[in-house]
């Protein structure tokens, strides 16, 4: 008799737990936000993607997407992120790779939504065959592109208000930072992506950040919009362009430092090196254009302010 | 000029015994022909004399065992003309012949006028002075053989080892080359050891013969005593008729198609 009661109690408990879990999935409007209806249809460059229900087991294979998802408040819906998603630190990092997605490993987590930066290894096809939606979120072309992606993720994960708040915060902060800094009068900048002198012109996302502060990108001078804004320069060109600021976005991948830059043949004569305006930054901070871009803008603001005073003095 | 003596020379390639203790002697100015069917060990025996292969027994050049000789010193006495010599592409004949002076040069030395004079003399002596600027790989068979011989002679050897010196030549060039070698033997006192398929030519030029079969010496001595119809039948499996011809013999192959020894009637 007591055994039967015990079993019934267990069953009832389980049922209640399941019911409790189900509740958030029911499309009842949350008190403060617009209603998020499922299924959702999203038009992407790859075609129509259907999200059947609110995703509770999200896998993010893109560091930028990871940051965005957590920043809109959907962190609890994420079950796994790739090995390069180092931010935020409490994200469930795994050995998964966004460059070479291992389909079996991914499906092992039973995802109901996969986020990736570009479709590698036939991921979209494989996931579609398993009825798991994949959102491909390529690197944004500009800030408004970033805001769009954040809003999209907010809709998809049912955190519309979180997304809207994030976007307006970002807009506000960035605008504030930019106005707090006097427009840099024609200071020239060289943004280094790797030690073979790949750089970004002002037509790129990062180039536009610099443009906001009135900086001139030395890569523009040669009229380089080919290679989608990421041309390769040469030592001679850079030395003769004599940039006043150098940002090293290859401190992690390519182990570049202020010292290694100064040691390059001929570089010790560049203005930026002579005035100690060589700024090493973390590669990912400069290349992951999600919520952390605000931190980068703040960094650039500090750099510009300092440089202004240095160059005004000379 | 000195001679060479093989004392119980044996060679094994791994587990396989290729040469079973053969002995022979060639004095200065003598010609020894090494005959035998394919696979009998002729080339191996010649290579042993040059020190190119490990052997047991001994090879004595003059009075010295080649085991105690520095390779370069040996090369000043023994010159090898292999069966398939390499003709490096693009190398001039004159350069090629000059390489024969290698054993006379110390490790880092370059050729001197004396060496060039020797090479020049050899070219003239063999009558191929006109070929000096030719590419060795572009020569005809006869020209090539003489060039190879010139290189061997540039070594100024006492002993000349020839592995099938005429197999690739037409009958005219065969005679030329053999006469030239015989000339050297008589005038310079060079000891000649040659391995040959052409039994008749061997008998015409060599005074002594060693016949090998399966790595053993099965006969040795003067031409007449070694080359007999029974022996050739037994070791070569060939039917021949032997005819005396002056100092040598003529070996006439006989067709045995059942219609008599000449096979004339068909």
């Amino acid at each position: 008799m007591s055994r039967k009661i015990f079993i019934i109690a267990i069953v009832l408990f389980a049922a209640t737990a399941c019911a409790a879990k189900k509740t958030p999935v029911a499309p009842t409007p949350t008190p403060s936000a617009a209603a998020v209806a499922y299924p959702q249809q999203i038009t992407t460059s790859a075609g129509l993607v259907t999200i059947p229900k609110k995703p509770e087991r999200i896998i993010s294979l893109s560091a930028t997407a990871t940051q965005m998802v957590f920043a809109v408040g959907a962190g609890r819906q994420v079950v796994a992120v790739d090995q390069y998603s180092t931010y935020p630190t409490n994200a469930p990092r795994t050995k998964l790779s966004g460059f070479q997605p291992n389909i079996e490993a991914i499906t092992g987590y039973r995802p109901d939504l996969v986020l990736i930066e570009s479709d590698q290894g036939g991921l979209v096809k494989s996931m579609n065959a398993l009825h798991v939606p994949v959102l491909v979120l390529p690197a944004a072309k500009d800030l408004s592109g970033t805001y769009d992606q954040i809003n999209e993720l907010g809709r998809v994960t049912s955190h519309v208000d979180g997304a809207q708040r994030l976007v307006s915060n970002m807009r506000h902060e960035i605008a504030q930072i930019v106005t707090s800094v006097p427009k840099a009068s024609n200071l020239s900048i060289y943004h280094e992506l790797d030690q073979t002198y790949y750089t970004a012109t002002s037509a790129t996302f990062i180039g536009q950040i610099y443009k906001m502060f009135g900086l001139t990108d030395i890569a523009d001078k040669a009229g380089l919009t080919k290679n989608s804004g990421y041309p390769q320069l040469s030592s001679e060109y850079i030395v003769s362009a004599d940039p006043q600021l150098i940002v090293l976005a290859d401190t992690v991948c390519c182990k570049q430092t202020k010292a290694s830059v100064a040691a390059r043949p001929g570089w010790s004569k560049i203005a930026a090196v002579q005035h100690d305006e060589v700024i090493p930054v973390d590669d990912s901070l400069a290349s992951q254009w999600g919520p952390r871009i605000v931190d980068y803008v703040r960094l650039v603001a500090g750099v510009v302010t300092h440089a202004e005073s240095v160059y005004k003095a000379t | 000029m000195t001679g060479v003596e093989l004392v119980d020379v044996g060679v094994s390639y791994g587990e396989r015994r290729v040469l079973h203790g053969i002995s022979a002697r060639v004095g200065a100015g003598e010609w020894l022909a090494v005959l035998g069917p394919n696979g009998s060990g002729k080339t191996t025996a010649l290579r042993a004399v040059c020190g190119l292969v490990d052997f047991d027994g001994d090879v004595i050049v003059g009075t010295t065992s080649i085991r105690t000789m520095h390779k370069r010193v040996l090369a000043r006495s023994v010159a090898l003309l292999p069966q398939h010599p390499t003709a490096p592409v693009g190398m001039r004949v004159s350069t090629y012949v000059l390489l024969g002076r290698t054993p006379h040069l110390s490790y880092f030395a370059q050729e001197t006028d004396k060496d060039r004079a020797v090479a020049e003399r050899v070219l003239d002596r063999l009558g191929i002075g006109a070929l000096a600027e030719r590419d060795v790989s572009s020569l005809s068979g006869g020209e090539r053989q003489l060039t190879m011989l010139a290189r061997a002679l540039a070594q100024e050897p006492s002993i000349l080892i020839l592995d099938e010196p005429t197999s690739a030549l037409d009958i005219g060039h065969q005679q030329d080359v053999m006469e030239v070698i015989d000339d050297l033997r008589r005038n310079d006192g060079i000891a000649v050891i040659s391995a040959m398929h052409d039994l008749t030519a061997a008998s015409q030029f060599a005074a002594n013969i060693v016949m090998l079969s399966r790595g053993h010496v099965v006969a040795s001595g003067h031409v007449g005593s070694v080359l007999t119809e029974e022996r050739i039948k037994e070791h070569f499996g060939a039917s021949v008729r032997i005819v005396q011809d002056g100092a040598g013999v003529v070996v006439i192959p006989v067709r045995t198609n059942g219609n008599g020894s000449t096979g004339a009637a068909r």
Partner: protein
Amino acid sequence: MTDEAAARVASHRLRARWLVVALAMLALAMAAGMLFGAKSLPPSDVLRSLVGSSSHGKQPLDAVIVRSIRLPRVLLAGLVGGVLALAGAAYQGVFANPLADPYLLGAASGAEVGATIAIAYAPAAWSVNSVPVAAFLGSIAAVAAAVVLGRSVRAGRSTTVLILAGVAIAAFLTAVETYVQQQHQAAIRLIYSFILGRLGTAGWSGLKLVLPYALVAAIVILLHRRHLDVLSLGDDEAASLGIRVARVRLILVAAATLATAAAVAIAGTIAFVGIIVPHTIRLITGGSYRTILPLSIIVGAAFLILADLVARTAVAPAELPIGVITALIGAPFFVVLLRRSRVVAQ
């Protein structure tokens, strides 16, 4: 002996006219390398920058470009080109094969694996300067492994066995390299830029690193130039002429590899120079290493200086990997060789 006769038997000697032609090529190449670049500078400025005094403090940037960027780069390209061509000629002689190149026994694979492992596993504290050292050691280790493997075989003194051992080692190392790269995707960019060529970034320090090895190798190989001619006769005949074939081969491989390892460690893997230059010289001047070796050094230097010039000006200010240029020249070269195959066939 008459003069005519002397001339006849001295054909292996390096003819003065070839030497003059080669040196002229080198001088022209060096001049072109200094005069042209991503930044166009008038020749008078270039000249002034070279001979002008180096005043401390403000130096016009043009002078910096000429003295600190172009000059060491041209010199390094020349040195690496000369080394690779010399090593290629030595390998061609040792293996009696006109298509041998300095990477035959795994020198390039070894350098790449060394660089890959250093980049992938080195702690962040190590500077980027540790990579060339790792590449150098990897290169030497690979060739040593090939030699040991080749000699461990019973018939192991033949060149065929040695080549096979080199192929085996290179294949194995390529697998290791690929595996490590896949495990460290983020480092791939750095690894590839290392492999594709770094003539532009090595500077004076790179030159200083390569020079001693290049000198040692050049001296050793040139001292053995007569031996290389003898080796071209094949193992048996060379031995019958009194040469200790295996030992000479080892010395030459060691010297050539030492210089190749240094060149690859600093400048990356540059293909085709080691085959094209010595072979072309052989086709033009005839088959003695007494001629081929010194000319290879000079012409190899000129060749790579010009290839590097094209690499850094064709798509200026961007740069093409120098391996692309040498390959673009190498491909038609092999077509020409094919059509002359009558000559190539041994």
